[in-house]
């Protein structure tokens, strides 16, 4: 009795500990008739579906899901987890992503039954604890950004951006103005222009100057009363502080525009300088970068938007608000409306508040000091190894350019990135920002030690030397991971987006 190709849930050869096989999909591990689920014994009288719902609505066929034992379920997803790099395994110097270590106490908080088990539609009278968390967090975020009020609803940075742009629109509309353009520097994150479009605006791009900052003259040249506002991130995506920010702010305000601060990189400036004090009117924050929410393989995050007082009346509602000695939901008078199905990513908000309360004001400043210290140390340390795109003091991250390597040795940023994995590190961000050729963007974050930075630097040194002596080894990398370099072009060409889209054999 021999079966061919048994889909064996107990075979662990895809766990990198054991081998380098591919892990079957859960559907291949499925055997009809198997199951894992167990429900509570309810005593509710069983009745056939046909007694409950008119037959016209009832499905003819069941939805087929994987049918696996709990044992195989666990083995499959445990093995998948072993095929995944993460901060908890090692350094993740991914620029613009702030892959810091996030304290586990926040996981505990986010799973407290008294927080995680609360229905979002329960009235304020029964959810005072949650409302107090939201009011406290809003206050802390306003202090950190130098703003007057905030909405906690946006679920991520991009959602915050779009919310901010709608706030701008509402602001101008309330003044009877219809402005059509938003200015964005060419170094901006892709979400910015995409949000601008969804906000119903046209993008006007301004170039960076040779110091990596907004070209002030170019900016001034495009400013007029059709400009609703400007979106900036400061430090910008090159990790550089826009020193002319006061002048930029004045210029934009002069034409009646507003300043939007993309606060994804707030990690660089906590307690040092505040967007509000720089002249910004609207700020979104990526709590999942700065305030200790792990990234979850791509989400969830939270993108609260804080605004100056003249924009408060437009904020999305309802907002948790202290009313007397109780907390209640209050919707601002000229609210743009809801931007989330409920109250935003509440558990992420709780994590962020916990993180802020542990650190306090001084601790938050220290976070930024150490983030910037680490980034500058690695910049200086690597400046003899690779070209630094803009070689002057940076903030929380630094961008290298491998133009020389590519031109002289055919080595691209991606080759260095892939080879770095073999040395035990996640790759930096590559090819972003777009304005730097062969960009490698390194953000060490404050939670990595000097020893780790040094090991990272030594790995880069090794790779730089190898690029000259044995360039093929870089092209062949990575060779130690469960799969080698992946064919992205094939993925787009053959387009297998689900298991069911696989060509039948």
């Amino acid at each position: 009795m021999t079966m061919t190709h048994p889909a064996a849930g107990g075979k662990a050869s895809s766990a990198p500990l054991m081998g380098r096989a591919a892990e079957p999909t859960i559907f291949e591990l499925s055997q009809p008739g198997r199951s894992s689920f167990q429900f509570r014994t309810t005593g509710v009288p069983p009745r056939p579906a046909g007694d409950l719902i008119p037959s016209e609505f009832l499905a003819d066929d069941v939805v087929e899901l994987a049918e696996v034992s709990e044992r195989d379920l666990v083995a499959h997803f445990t093995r998948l987890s072993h095929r995944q790099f993460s901060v908890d395994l090692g350094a993740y110097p991914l620029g613009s992503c702030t892959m810091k270590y996030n304290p586990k106490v926040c996981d505990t908080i986010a799973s407290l039954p008294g927080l995680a088990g609360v229905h979002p539609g329960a009235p304020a009278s029964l959810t005072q604890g949650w409302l107090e968390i939201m009011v406290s967090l809003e206050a802390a975020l306003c202090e950190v950004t130098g703003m007057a009020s905030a909405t906690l609803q946006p679920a991520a940075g991009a959602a915050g951006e779009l919310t901010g742009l709608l706030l701008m629109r509402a602001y101008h509309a309330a003044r009877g103005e219809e402005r059509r353009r938003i200015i964005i520097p060419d170094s901006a994150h892709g979400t910015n222009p995409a949000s601008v479009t969804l906000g119903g605006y046209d993008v006007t791009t301004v170039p960076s100057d040779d110091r990596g900052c907004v070209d002030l003259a170019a900016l001034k040249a495009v400013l007029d009363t059709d400009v609703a506002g400007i979106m900036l991130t400061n430090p910008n995506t090159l990790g550089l502080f826009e020193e002319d920010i006061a002048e930029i702010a004045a210029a934009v305000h002069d034409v009646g525009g507003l300043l939007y601060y993309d606060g994804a990189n707030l990690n660089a400036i906590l307690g040092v300088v505040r967007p509000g004090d720089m002249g910004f009117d609207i700020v979104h924050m990526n709590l999942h970068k700065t305030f200790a929410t792990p990234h979850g393989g791509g989400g969830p995050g939270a993108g609260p938007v804080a605004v100056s007082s003249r924009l408060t009346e437009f904020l999305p509602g309802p907002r948790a608000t202290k009313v007397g000695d109780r907390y209640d939901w209050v919707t601002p008078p000229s609210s743009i409306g809801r931007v989330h199905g409920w109250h935003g990513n509440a558990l992420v908000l709780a994590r962020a508040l916990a993180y802020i309360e542990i650190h306090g004001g001084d601790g938050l400043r220290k976070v930024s000091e150490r983030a910037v210290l680490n980034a500058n140390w690695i910049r200086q340390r690597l400046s003899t190894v690779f070209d630094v795109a803009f070689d002057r003091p940076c903030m929380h991250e630094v961008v290298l350019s491998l133009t020389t390597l590519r031109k002289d040795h055919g080595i691209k940023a991606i080759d260095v990135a892939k080879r770095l994995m073999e040395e035990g590190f996640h790759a930096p961000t590559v090819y972003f920002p777009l304005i730097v050729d062969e960009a490698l963007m390194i953000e060490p974050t404050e939670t990595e030690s000097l020893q780790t930075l040094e090991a990272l630097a030594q790995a880069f040194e090794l790779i730089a030397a190898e690029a000259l002596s044995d360039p093929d080894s870089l092209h062949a990398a990575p060779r130690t991971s469960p799969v080698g370099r992946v064919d992205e072009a094939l993925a787009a060409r053959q387009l297998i987006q689900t298991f069911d889209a696989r060509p039948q054999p």
Partner: protein
Amino acid sequence: MADYMPHTPEEVEQMLAFLGLSTEAELFDVVPEAIRLAGGLNLAPGITEPDVLDRFEQRAANNRARADQLVCFAGAGAYDHELPPVVKMLGSRSEFVTAYTPYQPEIAQGVLQAIFEFQTMTARIFGLPVANASLYDGATALVEAVNLAVASAKNSRVVLSSGVHPHWRQVVETFAVGTGHEIEVAPLVDGRTDFSAIDGPCGAIVVAQPNYLGGLEHLDQVRALCDRTGALMIVAADPVASGLLKTPGSYGADVVVGEGQGFGTALSFGGPYLGLFACTLPQIRRLPGRIVGETVDTTGTKAYVTTLRTREQDIRREKATSNVCTNQTLMAVAAAIQLSWLGTAGLTDLALRCAQGTRYLIDQLGAGSNTSVLHPNLPVFRDVAIRTAAPASVVIERMADEGFLAGIAASALLRGSDPSLSPSDHDHTLLVSVTERRTAEQIDRFAAALEKAGQK
């Protein structure tokens, strides 16, 4: 002061020296003096982890409406479904939790494959061939669906059923200000959408299945209307219902969105949740958000990677199909785990148990004089609208003292004049939901208590 930074004072010194600096403050010399924050942040001094835990336990204690204390009969888009230990354990493995978006596929096969499996499950549940890697929540997924439909149909007229969850409608309306869609609302009549007034070309028609009063809509009629008007058919569907009901895809829906919270995510006070998004193959290049595809590595080994990236904001910028970057991957992974725990039989059984429990509640309520089913002839799945003699919001407060979260007051979801309920029903409609976790004994007690609490 507690923190998570490794630097010893000596190391800080050493690193500063390497940079030619003498204080950490000098790191910020690039920041013009004039705008620097003087005096530090005005926040309370830091406290330690155990202190913070104490504080949050106190906050948690101040939430009376926790599902371990008030028996939960609330639904309206967020449900108290079973969350088995095995799913929690797997979903909280730190490799999933502390990874970034899988930009480097060679060392991110775990998340990539989990998403690929999630996409497959979502597609099957909605009866469509394509699903993405998740969006923020059901409401914002609906916004994206409308954007896709408008772009595809090249018509910005959008008809929204009044049976779509009021919050979702509000979110669609908020964002329509930016995109410039013209939103028209079709009213509910006897608990079902009345599209009879809709005529002429249209970009999108949106209907919920079931609608927010719990009622089942005639999707075949909506499909016909779409065919007539040229609109794309968008269904905001309850994915749990797919265990019993025909999938929206089987009716010919073009885009189906839904809230995936019921699959492995706790009530969480509303987030993080899980926006589900599925569509037809021709729409794949308009898909918002990430999608994972299958491919091979250099040695021909099967591998997964994010694909069709040129739709996305980081590449396409202002011409992207959407601005979404961070999504809700961790919830998608949890959903893939929960759905594999359920399996074919489990999903069917889950849906059947919800329907049985809901019917059992309706039967127990039957005789009451203070409470009655709002639309007794409307077929429902696991949500039902109850008319209460006292205002629903009052009933909820009274029921809390009896140990129940009785449901959601429709008036709390609706804004001002909303066509989905008659003015007389507006304050007296309680949205109740019965999941597979509710026992007959709980339902009996609930029905009895509600009859009392429902009193004027």
